[in-house]
């Protein structure tokens, strides 16, 4: 009960290792990343192995997921965006599985480490920059001036757009990290109150623990969804500079 609610996020090296002064110790987060990858891969491979015309439970779940990701890409990027399907699907599946596996008591939520989410978001943003510059060249800088801006506003719009561009990967990383961390802290605090409250009053925080735990199932999905849809939106912005001017379809 005296334990800090933040204690669950502390990482201690299980197998200390370092290469050239860089600490690459194996800790709980690393192990659970492997677990997430293993569980996700096994689930997907098993779902894809039977390929029946009338799908079983696992297969229809996997088909739903693929269809869902496909719709996200089609809605935000159009047909051309399907070339990003592997990236988008990998991110979605990894985040979804790590959010859900983290909800099992005693496990670790990989996405509650900001470095994990930051690597994903900067990767996505970096790819969107590379795609934008390779497709549009220097004209990609025109993303800083939204279409329809009056000439006298341009010097004002450029700093504003630069800030909102820099804010993109940061908000992407912080949102996922903060939501997962906050949810788990809340659960730890409420459950601490349950244990400390005894029988007379302890039932009240316990009810809330159960309710918040249920809510966290929704949050786990929503956060994976938001991260993925924003990945699509950012890639789509780089892809179709100012809407569909150049890639009309």
């Amino acid at each position: 009960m005296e334990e800090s609610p933040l204690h669950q996020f502390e990482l201690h090296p299980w197998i200390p290792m370092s290469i050239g002064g860089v600490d690459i110790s194996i800790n709980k987060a690393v192990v659970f990343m492997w677990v997430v990858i293993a569980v996700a891969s096994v689930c997907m491979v098993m779902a894809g192995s039977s390929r029946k015309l009338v799908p079983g439970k696992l297969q229809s779940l996997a088909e739903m997921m693929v269809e869902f990701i496909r719709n996200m890409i089609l809605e935000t990027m159009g047909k051309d965006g399907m070339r990003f399907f592997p990236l988008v699907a990998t991110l979605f599946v990894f985040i979804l599985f790590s959010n859900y596996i983290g909800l099992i008591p005693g496990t670790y939520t990989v996405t509650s480490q900001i470095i994990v989410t930051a690597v994903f978001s900067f990767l996505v943003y970096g790819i969107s920059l590379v795609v934008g510059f390779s497709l549009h060249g220097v004209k990609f800088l025109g993303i800083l001036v939204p279409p329809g801006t009056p000439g006298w506003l341009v010097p004002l719009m450029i700093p504003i757009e630069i800030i909102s561009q820099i804010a993109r990967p940061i908000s992407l990383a912080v949102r996922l990290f903060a939501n997962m961390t906050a949810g788990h802290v809340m659960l730890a605090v409420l459950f601490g109150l349950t244990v400390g409250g005894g029988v007379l009053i302890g039932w009240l925080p316990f009810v809330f623990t159960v309710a918040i735990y249920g809510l966290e199932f929704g949050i786990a999905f929503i956060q994976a969804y938001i991260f993925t849809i924003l990945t699509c939106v950012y890639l789509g912005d780089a892809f179709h500079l100012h809407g569909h001017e150049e890639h009309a379809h």
Partner: protein
Amino acid sequence: MPPPQDPLYAGLGQAVRIGTELLAALIVGGGLGWAVDTYLFGTIPWGLVIGLVFGLAAGMRSAYRSAQRWQNPPTDVDKQG
């Protein structure tokens, strides 16, 4: 897995998204202003103030933009230009 078309989840997702966008832009704006002050010109607090104002504007703009995207499907927004 809740279906994506569920209005509750779509709304929740949108709310969470806009909140962080506002805050992140404000922090980036303020941080850039502060960095310019501290490392370039030593004009504290003017860079910070201007940076915060620009950050606020940027946050409002991205929040407005995502709300707009929510109201009309992306194709309609593109047609309006």
